[in-house]
């Protein structure tokens, strides 16, 4: 055999020759799974076809020969009775790419075969359905048809189980041919042999569709790689009551709970389960004890071999179990976390494998806070459920109800969380949808424009809430007997589709925590790194600890802003002098007062590492907040890091008092931004504020500081490297532009920057970081990608500070980076 290889043939499994799907099926067969017999036409045949535009010499003979083998193996015959052999044909390139031909099922369905099948199944309706499906699938996959076929569907629905099958075949086939002719002016070959050959050629031709070519060019995949073709015998789940088909997951893909989770539909073909035409039963109830045991045993073996949860597509034909496809199971974020933790705990997966089973995005979603369960139950009991629509994008959010996109943006800009309510949504509502935390519309289904936009934005959304009556003029909403005015607080559940009156408090889901802790403990072990969380409010300290942070970082200006005292202090700096008992003693008092609660929370939470950043009057991102222009005009010396050493002493003194009041005895240090010279570091170190004063050090924010980091570190009690500030300095882009989507999104999309400085480390920055002493802490802002975590870990950094929600994803990323090396 030159061009083909049976699944059962021995030899190396080479994806370059057999393609991805083909080598998967060969491997499953070699692993001892009962796979319906089949063969692969290798990529070599494709090369010849593409060269000369015709099938290679000898291939037709080989296909005939393989067909005879399949007939022998299955005891069925191609195109005729009494047991007709039907085939599936699919493409299988060595790498997955767009534009390639998908699967065609039921090839070989001639009139004779259909009649024979009808006699075997004693059900003409089944045959009518099969014929219509085959014709539609061949039309779509091989010929490119898209239209629904209501006339054919109607004929299928009318077909009587007891009628003469030949007549039913003729009627359905003619109607399907007519629909296809109307749509494309094409025809499906009526002889099985031609169906097979044309399908094989269609696979080869699909290698050169415009999309496939473009994709290969952009991804550097050679055009001469070619695709394989997988030809496989079909097994039938819809023959009789001892047949059926199903999908099983080796664990519950929704919760992650152990145990086979699956659905089985007796007397059905695989598409029925997928299409949701009939409601399937649980495998535990629907399968016979023998079959269930076989499925469970095979599932467990496969899971152990792959170290992952698998999705198994199977068919039972006359009581015999066949495996059609085995692949890594899709799962919810909650399930991903639990599965990884369980597989780690039971030894199925080692730490490296377990950490690979959860992505940072899944972890972020799984830790996303939801409505407090008791508050939610109380809201239901109190009759605060206003309406139930269709959940279009999950998420539980509270906010004020706003009925107009312009006003939604105004309110959101003013800092409010907004739930936007609309009757219908048009493209002109987009700015309001972007600003909103949640969206509810009276019309539309889960596949409306509003739903698509909301999901693209990741915004919680309920559509089709028919009970929502909006009175635009009065700015009120009626839901049944209740009336709400714009501005009233509401709570929206984009998963369940519910809208409640009033704001509901949120909490981190408790169920996910235990599994997360197990997994993150493994990650932290491997990473050998300390992760601190940036906090501003005392209440966040416990959350940080719970997420695995070993300490916290905070900034004095942030804490003062959150306490509402910052404006007063800035006014003070503008009015008073900086000497003696002027503005600086006010700063000392304010730091003492407002940092004390945070330090008390640290003490209570057992946190013993607190790094504080000194007020930064230069930071681009707080120009307005700190009235920089006015303050530095009044006191030009404040524009430099050590321009007024007493400002640093005031903060230090305030911290000493705060720690005393709070009873905090852990490590406490103060770091000053923008220091770049060893002389500055020495001057900082020389400030003598008594033996209790926190150690002082620096935040590296400039290329000069980074290049001189070793010497700066020698004189500093603490050194942090601030990645965002450094990247801003390297790109020469004001740091505040890094805080928002625009204008950088559009700029990067235009291809004007090779690196998005908000999400990726610039290679030049990586180069600079090589000589930074490894004891330096790295301060990261916003979401941290796995690539950034891996690069920093590779460079030897072992101490990090991130925004609170990023503690877990960073630990995971660092652990993965450590274990993959």
């Amino acid at each position, binding site marked *: 055999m030159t061009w083909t290889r049976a699944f059962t043939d021995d030899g190396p499994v080479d994806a370059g020759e057999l393609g991805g799907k083909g080598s998967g099926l060969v491997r499953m067969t070699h692993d001892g799974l009962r796979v319906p017999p089949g063969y692969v036409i290798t990529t070599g045949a494709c090369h010849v076809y593409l060269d000369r535009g015709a099938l290679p010499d000898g291939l037709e003979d080989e296909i005939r020969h393989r067909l005879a083998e399949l007939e022998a193996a299955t005891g069925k015959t191609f195109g005729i009775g009494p047991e007709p052999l039907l085939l599936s044909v699919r493409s299988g390139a060595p790498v997955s790419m767009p*534009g390639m031909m998908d699967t065609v099922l039921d090839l070989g369905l001639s009139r004779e075969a259909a009649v024979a099948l009808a006699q075997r199944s004693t059900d003409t309706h089944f045959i009518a359905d099969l014929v219509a499906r085959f014709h539609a699938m061949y039309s779509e996959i091989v010929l490119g048809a*898209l239209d629904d076929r209501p006339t054919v569907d109607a004929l299928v629905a009318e077909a009587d189980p007891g009628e003469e099958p030949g007549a039913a075949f003729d009627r359905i086939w003619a109607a399907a041919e007519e629909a296809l002719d109307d749509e494309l002016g094409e025809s499906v070959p009526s002889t099985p042999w031609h169906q097979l050959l044309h399908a094989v050629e269609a696979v080869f031709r699909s290698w050169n569709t415009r999309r496939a070519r473009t994709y290969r060019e952009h991804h550097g995949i050679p055009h001469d790689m070619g695709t394989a073709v997988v030809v496989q015998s079909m097994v039938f789940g819809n023959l009789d009551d001892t047949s059926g088909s199903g999908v099983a997951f080796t664990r519950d893909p929704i919760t992650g709970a152990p145990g086979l989770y699956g659905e089985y539909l007796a007397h059905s073909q695989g598409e029925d389960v997928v299409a949701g035409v009939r409601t399937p039963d649980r495998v535990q109830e629907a399968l016979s004890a023998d079959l269930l045991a076989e499925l469970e045993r095979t599932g467990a073996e496969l899971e152990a071999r792959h170290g992952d949860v698998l999705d198994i597509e199977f068919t039972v034909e006359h009581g015999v179990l066949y495996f059609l496809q085995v692949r890594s*199971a899709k799962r*919810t974020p909650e399930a991903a976390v639990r599965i990884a933790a369980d597989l780690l705990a039971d030894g199925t997966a080692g730490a490296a494998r377990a950490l690979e089973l959860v992505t940072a995005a899944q972890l972020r979603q799984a830790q996303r806070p939801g409505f407090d369960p008791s508050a939610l139950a109380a809201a239901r009991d109190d009759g605060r459920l206003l309406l139930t629509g269709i959940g279009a994008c999950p998420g539980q959010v509270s906010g004020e109800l706003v009925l107009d996109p312009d006003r939604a943006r105004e309110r959101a800009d003013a800092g409010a969380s907004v739930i936007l309510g609309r009757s219908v949504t048009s493209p002109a509502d*987009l700015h309001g949808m972007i600003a909103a935390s949640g969206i509810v*519309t009276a019309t539309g289904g889960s596949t409306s424009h509003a739903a698509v936009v909301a*999901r*693209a934005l990741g915004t919680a959304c309920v*559509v089709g809430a028919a009970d929502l009556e909006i009175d635009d003029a009065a700015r009120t909403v009626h839901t049944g007997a209740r009336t709400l005015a714009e501005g009233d607080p509401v709570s929206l559940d984009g998963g369940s589709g519910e809208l409640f009156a009033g704001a509901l408090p949120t909490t981190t889901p408790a169920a996910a925590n235990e599994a997360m802790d197990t997994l993150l403990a493994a990650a932290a072990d491997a990473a050998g790194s300390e992760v601190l969380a940036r906090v501003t409010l005392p209440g966040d300290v416990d959350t940080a600890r719970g997420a695995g942070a070993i300490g916290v970082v905070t900034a004095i200006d942030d804490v003062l802003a959150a306490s509402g005292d910052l404006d007063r202090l800035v006014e003070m700096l503008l009015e008073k002098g900086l000497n003696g008992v002027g503005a600086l003693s006010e700063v000392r008092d304010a730091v003492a007062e407002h940092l004390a609660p945070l330090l008390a929370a640290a003490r209570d939470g057992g946190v013993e590492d607190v790094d504080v950043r000194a007020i930064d009057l230069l930071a681009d991102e707080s120009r307005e907040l700190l009235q920089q222009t006015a303050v530095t005009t009044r006191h030009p010396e404040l524009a430099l890091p050590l321009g007024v050493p007493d400002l640093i002493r005031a903060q230090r003194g305030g911290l000493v008092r705060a720690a005393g009041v709070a009873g905090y005895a852990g490590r406490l240090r103060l770091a000053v931004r923008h220091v770049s010279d060893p002389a500055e570091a020495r001057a900082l170190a020389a400030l003598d504020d008594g033996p209790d004063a926190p150690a002082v050090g620096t935040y590296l924010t400039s290329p000069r500081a980074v290049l001189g980091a070793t010497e700066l570190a020698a004189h500093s009690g603490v050194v942090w490297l601030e990645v965002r500030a450094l990247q801003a300095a390297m790109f020469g882009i004001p740091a505040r532009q890094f805080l928002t989507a625009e204008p950088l999104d559009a700029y990067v999309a235009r291809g004007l920057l090779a690196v998005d400085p908000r999400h990726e480390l610039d290679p030049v920055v990586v180069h600079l970081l090589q000589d930074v002493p490894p004891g330096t802490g790295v301060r990261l802002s916003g979401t941290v990608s796995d690539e950034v975590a891996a690069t920093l870990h590779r460079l030897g950094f072992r101490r990090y500070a991130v925004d609170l929600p990023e503690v877990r994803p960073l630990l995971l990323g660092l652990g993965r980076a450590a274990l993959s090396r």
Partner: protein
Amino acid sequence: MAVTTLAKPDYDVLNVLALKKMAGAAAIATVTGMEAGDVEGRLEDLANNGLAVVAGGSALPTDEAEPALAATAAGIYAPIRADDDVLALVGRFETTNSQFLVAMSSWQQVEVGGRKVTNDHSDAGYDEKVITKIERLVGRLEALLDALAEHDARFSTYSTRFASALEAVDAGDHDLISSPTRDSVHTIWFEFHEDLLRTLGRERAE
């Protein structure tokens, strides 16, 4: 109260502005195929007539814009509204639109054990099937766009926009499938749908 009707080029500019809600002259010029300078002048005229507000390089339509567009469309597109060929194609568009939105949704969410969860795009094979479907459905609009372009050439700009979005998608910029903030396939489709409704004088149902 008498509603203003617009000259055709002014209609084209204001129509795009109303679809985008906020846009600069350059963005409108790209979509309409007009010169940026021409668009700028027309935006100023529209602002003088109380139909748009221009501030800081961007324009916004006023509340008077929609009625003016509706009144103008009723006049200039009367021949389209009476064209049976177009109307037959519009009938088919409804089906295509539903199929398109289903395809968009299957790009964003996958079914897991009977529940929809966010597509994490880890299954390239699945994603590529969806993209293929989306591309075919966009191809389905050609006949309608061509028929509309015979009445008003500006409709052919949708074909150009779809082509460049799909080309970028094939180049790996998958954000251009459904991003609401870029000229993604869904953005273009959504705007076309809205534009079509205005052209025909119909109300949006959802």
